[in-house]
């Protein structure tokens, strides 16, 4: 019996998710043993046409990481959807837009202008922006189109499962791959991680007081963080209460607060709104100006509460941004 075919693909991501696969360490040998990796651009040489040549649904599962920012990524998403029996959004970017989707606070023009014209490191004169097509010596070169909006994978194609995390841990990756191979998958649409918030497993849980009553908020760089005390008890925003567990508390063990990469539980539609609701309710002040004062410790609510989930949040993107119809890449 032929080995099941597995694919890995990456889009707008940092490469961390690829690292996570490699982080399976010796276990990756077991995976390689059990499956036939038919596509893994970061590690092996495959061409798009190789994938196109595969029969539809011939890949048992594709682990797809990264958000969707360009037309090429969209195209690959569609292609892999067609070729895969199970399409898994792998990591926070594919699941929720991830950090790349913080760019949904800016228009395409703002981004291109900054990156290609205004960035202090930009030496190119005259400042030029990349084009989707370019003629040189009779050769036509093309680049994919840079979209106006960063999207999570499920905003482009239908997704069967999500493996959360920035990046996902080897443990849940292994468990998910195992589940796929054994055909023991939960109902479609599930997130393959525990459906309980991080605090449940956080080693600092016991140190969290019952009454926080915030009078101020501090950002992690402003305090010498106590290595054992609950971050919220140190007035530092920790997204743990609003974030799915399963990450083995790697951040809180590493003395950094949770920033929310595992996304919300299944019972929550908008991770940021929920965290905001919970934190604000626990602010001590009653007078308007005192409340403002306390909350001024959170200077960037979008970046704080939606660090990984802006694309999949209820508003998705800064709503008054223009849609640039020009086909600049």
């Amino acid at each position: 019996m032929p080995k099941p075919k597995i694919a890995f693909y990456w889009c707008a991501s940092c490469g961390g998710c690829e690292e996570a696969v490699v982080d399976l360490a010796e276990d990756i040998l077991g995976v390689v043993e059990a499956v036939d990796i038919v596509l893994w651009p970061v590690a092996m040489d495959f061409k798009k046409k190789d994938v196109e040549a595969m029969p539809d649904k011939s890949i048992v599962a594709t682990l797809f990481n990264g958000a969707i920012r360009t037309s090429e990524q969209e195209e690959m998403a569609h292609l892999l959807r067609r070729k895969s029996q199970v399409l898994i959004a792998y990591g926070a970017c594919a699941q929720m837009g991830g950090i790349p989707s913080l760019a949904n606070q800016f228009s395409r023009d703002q981004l291109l202008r900054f990156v290609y014209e205004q960035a202090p490191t930009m030496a190119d004169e005259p400042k030029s922006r990349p084009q989707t097509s370019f003629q040189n010596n009779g050769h036509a070169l093309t680049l994919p189109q840079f979209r106006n909006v960063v999207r999570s994978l499920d905003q482009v194609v239908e997704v069967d499962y999500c493996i959360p995390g920035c990046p996902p841990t080897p443990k849940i990756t292994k468990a998910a791959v195992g589940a796929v191979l054994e055909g023991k998958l939960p109902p479609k649409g599930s997130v393959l991680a525990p459906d309980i918030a991080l605090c449940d497993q956080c080693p600092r849980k016991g140190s969290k007081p019952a009454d926080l009553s915030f009078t101020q908020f501090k950002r992690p760089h402003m305090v010498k963080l106590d290595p054992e005390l609950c971050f919220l008890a140190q007035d530092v925003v920790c997204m743990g209460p609003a974030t799915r567990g399963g990450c083995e508390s790697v951040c809180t063990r590493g003395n950094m607060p949770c920033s929310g990469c595992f996304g919300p539980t299944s019972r929550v539609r908008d991770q940021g709104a929920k965290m905001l609701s919970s934190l604000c309710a626990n602010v001590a002040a009653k007078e308007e100006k005192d409340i403002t004062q306390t909350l001024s410790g959170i200077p960037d609510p979008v970046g704080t509460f939606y660090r990984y989930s802006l694309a999949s949040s209820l508003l998705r993107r800064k709503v008054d941004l223009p849609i640039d119809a020009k086909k600049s890449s």
Partner: protein
Amino acid sequence: MRDTHWQPRIVAFFCNWCTYTAADLAGVSRLKYAPNVRVIRLMCSGRVDPQFVLDALARGADGVLIGGCHPGDCHYVDGNYKTLRRFQLLKRLLADMGVEQVRLRLEWISASEGERVKSVINEMVEQVRALGPLNLPGRFADWDREMTELEANIRTGEEQSARKEPEAAHA
């Protein structure tokens, strides 16, 4: 661009004890106000989950009005303070997300202030009307239009390959 038939749609979350009762009083007093508000009754303004506000906007509301008891008057002691705190940060969040300030409003309206229900609703409807539609469902659709051409191409491609499929299967 401005649709002349467009009417602002405002979703309101009113607490049972003060603002909802005040709205009932406005009715009993036969005060007349703009018909653009749809009230959802909650027991306390403290029940207003910021998700409700975002969801209402995302589903097409042009504004959201939250009505609670005056500070110190909450039927549940201090639920309205929790609302006030959430409201403050939510308002900043909305500003960062490009939603105009007047589209979210928090008002303390006691059970006896039927007149205030009228004036607040009328004022908010006019302010929102002056801003024009928020129309997030429409904006979402506009944003996603950039994907349609590619999707159409892919669909054609799929249809072609579907026709070829039997051969591929044999190969």
